[in-house]
C-alpha cells in the first residue's frame, strides 16, 4: 500500500477538515466535534503508515509534488509536498500519539463546557503539525509553523477565563514569535539568494547540492559562510519553538493549558517541530562543515545550545514541586539532548530520541493528567502522595514512563536513544563538553524522576484531595497502557544490534558499530543512571515526606541552590527586567515622541499662528487705529480753537477786517514801496 507524493496533502487536510467542522458546530455538538477529530486522526494515521510504506520502498529518495501558490509580477511563489523517510516516520508518530491523546482527552475534558472548541483546536493543531512535516517549501513550513504557534496559543489559553492561562498563552506566542522572526529573516535571505524556497525541486531546490555549493561559498561579513548565517537564523526559529536555552521560559508556563494539550504539544509534537526543522534543513547546516576558514560552524552552535539546555532543564526540574512543571523542564532537557545530537552530527540519533521521547513523555504527561484529574486538579507534589495504591494502572504506566525517561538500561527505549546520542557526542571531534553535559543531565534526570514518583505515588496522601483519588475510567487508562507498551517496544527498533530505524531514516544502511562506540560509555551511563535513582530513592523514597509543609530534603541540604532552582534560575524575572523593561521603555519613547515631540511641534505652530494673530490685532488696534484717532482728535482740537473765533458778533468781524487791512497795507507799503 503506498501513497504517492501528490496525495500527501491529504494527511494535514483531514484534521483541518475536522477543525473546520468543530468550529462550525455549535457548543452542543460535543460528540460530532470529537468524533470528527478522532476519525480524522485515524485517517491521518492510516495515510501516514501508507506514506511510510512508500518512503521505505524508496530509500534515500525525496518524492516531491510542487505547485504554484500565486504569481507576483513575472515570478511565481511555488510550494510543494515532500515524502521521505523522515516525513513518514514523524507523521506516523504524530498521528499515533495524537490519536491516543485525543482518546484520553475525551475522558479528561468530559465535563468542560467548551468541549467542542477543544477538539476543534486540537485537530487544527494536528493539521498544522502534519503540514509542517509534509511541506517541501520553507515558506509552507513557515506558514504551518505559525499555525502551530496559533494552535498552541489557543490551546494554552483554552481556559482563558484564568488570567494566568491567558498570560501564559500570550507569553508562549510572543516568545515563539521572537524565534519565528529569526526564521523569517533566514527564509527571506534564502529566498532572496536562491529565488525559491522549495527544498527539493528537481535539482535547483534549496537543499540540493548545487544550491548548497553556492550557499557555502557565499561569504558575508564576519567570515561566516552564507549557509551558516541562514542556518543559524533558521535555528533561531527552532530555539523559539522547541524552548531551547534563551527562549525556554514559555514552556513551563504553557502547563496552564489542559494536560492533554501539554502532552500533545509540549511533549510529543510541537516542541519536536524545532528539532524536525533542523533535521529537515540538515544538508544546509552541514554545508559549511568542510569549510576550513569559516569562523563558526552552524552545528557547533546547535550542539552548544543543546548541551546548555539539557543541563539547564534537568537542573531546574530538580527544584520544581508542580508535577507538570517537572515534566516540562524534563522535556526542555530532553530537547536539549536532541539538539545536542543534531549538533554533534547525527540527526538520525536525534530523530530516534525524538520518537522515543514522544512516546514516554506523552505517557508521563497523560499519567500526570490522570493523577490531576483524579486529585481534583491538585498539581503540587507536596500535597499529593500515596497515590500508588489508589491508582494502580496509572502508577504502573507512570513507572514505566519514568524508567524509560531516566534511561533504565536495556529494557526501555529511552536508554537506547540516549545511548545513541551519547555515543554520537562521544564521537564528535570538536569537543567533549556536550558529552559531559549529557552525562550530568542523565544523573539529574534519573534523580528528579525518582523524586517525582516517590513524592506522588509513594508515602501517604498529604491532602484530602489526594486521599479521595481513585483510578480513572478506561478511556483514560487504555491510552496509558498502549503508550507504555510503545515506550518499551520502540527502543527495540533502534538498538545497535538491529539499527533498523537509523538505516531506514538515513536511507543508507548504518553499520552497527557506527552507533555503538563501545561498551565503556554504555557501562558509564548505566552507572550514572543507577547513581541518580539511588540518590533519589534515598532522599525521597526511603524517608517519606510527612506533610505538605515539610521542607524538601534537598532544600535542607543545599538551601541556596535549591531555592534558585525552584525559582527557575530567575530567567523570567531577568527577562522581565531586561526585555520587558526595554519594551516598555521603547513604547514610552514612541508614545512620548508622538505626544510631545510631534504634538509639541504642531501645537507650537498653532501657538505661533495665534501669537501672530494677536500681534497683528494689537498692532492694528493700538498702532494704526490709535495713531489715526490721535490725529483726528488733534484736528478736532484745531477746528475747535478756530471755531471760537466765530463769535457771531458782526463788529468783531469788521474790526478784524480793518486790522487785517491795515497790516497788509503796511506790509505792502513798507515792503513794496520802500
Amino acid at each position, binding site marked *: 500500500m503506498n501513497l504517492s507524493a501528490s496525495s500527501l496533502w491529504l494527511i494535514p487536510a483531514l484534521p483541518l477538515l475536522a477543525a473546520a467542522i468543530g468550529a462550525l458546530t455549535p457548543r452542543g455538538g460535543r460528540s460530532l466535534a470529537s468524533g470528527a477529530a478522532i476519525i480524522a486522526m485515524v485517517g491521518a494515521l492510516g495515510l501516514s503508515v501508507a506514506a511510510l510504506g512508500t518512503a521505505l520502498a524508496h530509500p534515500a529518495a525525496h518524492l516531491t509534488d510542487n505547485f504554484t501558490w500565486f504569481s507576483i509580477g513575472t515570478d511565481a511563489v511555488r510550494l510543494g509536498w515532500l515524502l521521505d523517510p523522515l516525513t513518514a516516520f514523524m507523521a506516523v508518530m504524530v498521528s499515533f500519539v495524537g490519536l491516543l491523546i485525543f482518546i484520553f482527552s475525551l475522558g479528561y475534558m468530559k465535563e468542560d463546557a467548551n468541549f467542542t472548541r477543544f477538539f476543534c483546536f486540537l485537530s487544527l493543531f494536528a493539521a498544522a503539525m502534519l503540514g509542517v512535516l509534509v511541506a517541501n517549501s520553507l515558506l509552507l513550513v513557515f506558514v504551518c509553523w505559525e499555525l502551530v504557534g496559533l494552535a498552541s496559543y489557543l490551546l494554552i489559553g483554552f481556559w482563558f477565563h484564568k488570567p494566568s492561562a491567558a498570560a501564559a498563552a500570550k507569553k508562549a506566542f510572543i516568545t515563539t514569535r521572537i524565534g519565528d522572526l529569526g526564521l523569517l529573516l533566514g527564509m527571506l535571505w534564502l529566498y532572496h539568494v536562491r529565488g525559491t524556497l522549495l527544498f527539493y525541486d528537481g535539482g535547483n531546490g534549496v537543499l540540493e547540492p548545487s544550491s548548497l555549493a553556492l550557499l557555502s561559498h557565499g561569504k558575508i561579513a564576519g567570515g561566516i559562510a552564507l549557509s551558516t548565517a541562514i542556518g543559524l537564523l533558521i535555528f533561531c526559529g527552532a530555539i523559539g519553538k522547541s524552548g531551547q536555552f534563551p527562549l525556554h521560559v514559555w514552556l513551563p508556563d504553557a502547563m496552564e493549558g489542559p494536560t492533554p494539550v501539554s502532552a500533545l504539544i509540549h511533549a510529543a509534537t510541537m516542541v519536536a517541530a524545532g528539532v524536525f526543522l533542523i533535521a529537515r534543513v540538515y544538508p544546509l547546516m552541514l554545508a559549511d562543515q568542510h569549510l576550513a576558514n569559516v569562523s563558526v560552524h552552524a552545528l557547533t552552535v546547535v550542539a552548544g545550545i543543546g548541551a546548555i539546555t539539557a543541563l539547564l532543564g534537568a537542573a531546574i526540574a530538580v527544584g520544581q514541586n508542580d508535577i507538570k512543571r517537572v515534566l516540562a523542564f524534563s522535556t526542555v532537557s530532553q530537547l536539549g539532548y536532541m539538539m545536542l545530537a543534531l549538533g554533534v552530527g547525527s540527526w538520525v540519533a536525534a530523530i530516534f530520541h525524538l520518537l522515543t521521547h514522544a512516546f514516554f513523555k506523552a505517557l508521563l504527561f497523560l499519567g500526570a493528567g490522570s493523577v490531576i484529574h483524579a486529585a481534583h486538579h491538585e498539581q503540587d507534589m507536596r500535597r499529593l502522595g500515596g497515590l500508588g495504591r489508589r491508582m494502580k494502572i496509572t502508577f504502573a504506566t507512570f513507572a514505566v514512563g519514568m524508567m524509560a525517561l531516566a534511561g533504565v538500561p536495556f529494557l526501555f527505549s529511552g536508554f537506547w536513544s540516549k545511548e545513541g546520542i551519547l555515543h554520537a557526542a562521544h564521537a564528535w571531534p570538536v569537543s567533549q563538553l556536550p558529552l559531559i553535559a549529557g552525562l550530568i543531565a542523565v544523573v539529574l534526570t534519573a534523580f528528579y524522576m525518582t523524586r517525582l514518583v516517590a513524592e506522588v505515588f509513594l508515602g501517604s496522601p498529604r491532602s484530602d484531595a489526594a486521599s479521595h483519588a481513585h483510578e480513572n475510567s478506561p478511556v483514560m487508562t487504555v491510552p496509558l497502557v498502549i503508550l507504555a507498551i510503545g515506550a518499551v517496544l520502540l527502543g527495540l527498533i533502534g538498538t545497535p544490534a538491529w539499527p533498523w530505524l537509523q538505516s531506514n531514516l538515513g536511507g543508507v544502511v548504518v553499520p552497527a558499530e557506527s552507533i555503538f562506540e563501545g561498551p565503556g560509555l554504555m557501562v558509564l551511563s548505566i552507572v550514572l543512571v543507577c547513581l541518580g535513582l539511588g540518590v533519589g530513592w534515598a532522599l525521597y523514597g526511603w524517608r517519606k515526606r510527612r506533610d505538605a509543609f515539610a521542607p524538601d530534603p534537598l532544600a535542607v541540604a543545599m538551601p541556596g541552590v535549591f531555592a534558585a532552582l525552584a525559582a527557575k534560575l530567575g530567567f523570567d524575572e531577568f527577562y522581565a527586567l531586561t526585555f520587558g523593561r526595554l519594551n516598555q521603555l521603547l513604547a514610552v519613547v514612541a508614545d512620548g515622541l508622538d505626544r510631545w515631540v510631534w504634538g509639541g511641534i504642531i501645537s507650537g505652530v498653532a501657538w505661533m499662528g495665534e501669537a501672530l494673530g494677536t500681534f497683528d490685532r494689537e498692532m492694528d488696534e493700538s498702532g494704526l487705529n490709535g495713531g489715526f484717532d490721535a490725529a483726528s482728535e488733534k484736528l478736532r482740537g484745531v477746528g475747535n480753537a478756530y471755531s471760537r473765533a466765530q463769535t457771531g458778533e458782526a*463788529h468783531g468781524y469788521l*474790526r478784524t477786517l*480793518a*486790522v487785517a*487791512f*491795515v497790516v497788509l*497795507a*503796511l506790509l505792502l*507799503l513798507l515792503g513794496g*514801496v520802500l
Partner: protein
Amino acid sequence: MNLTFALIAFLILASAVLAATRRDLIHSALLLVGNWLGVAFFYLWAGAEFVAFAQALVYVGAISMVVLFAVLLTRRMRTELPLLVATRDRVVSAVLGGAAVFGVLAVAVLRTPLDTNPAKPAGSVSMLSLGQQLMGPQAAAVLIVGVLLTVSLLGAVVLASSDADGKEGAP
C-alpha cells in the same frame, strides 16, 4: 474848481460825522440823506450827471425811505441807550481803527504817483454812448442787476411779512 470841491467835501464829511454821532436815529438818518446828496453833487462836479441824478433818485428817493421805515418799525427802543462802558471802549477802538485805516490810505494815496488829466469837460460822457455801452457789452450785467433787484425785493417781502411764530407781525 477847488472851492466847489472843498464845499462839497465839507458837506459830505460833516454830514457823515454828524450822522455817526447823533443820538437820535431819525436825525442821523436825515443827515445821512444829506451825505448822499453831497455825494450826488460831487458826481455833478465830476461831470457825471446821469449818475448824480441816479444817485439822487435812488438814494434820496428810495433808500432813505427804507431807512426811515426801518427806524420807525423798530421804534420801541425810543432812544439810544446811554453809552455803556463797553460801548465807550468800543467807540475808542473803532475810532483808533478808523484812524489807522485812514492813515494807511492817506499814505498810499500820497505816495502813489497819479497822473491826472483835468481837461475832462463836464458832461463829457454822453447819454448816447452810455446807453449803447449799457445795452451793448454790459447788457448781461444790466439783466443780472434786474434779476437781482427783483429777487431781493421778493426776498425782503417774504422775510418781513412772514410771521413764522404765528402771532401777527410786530409793527
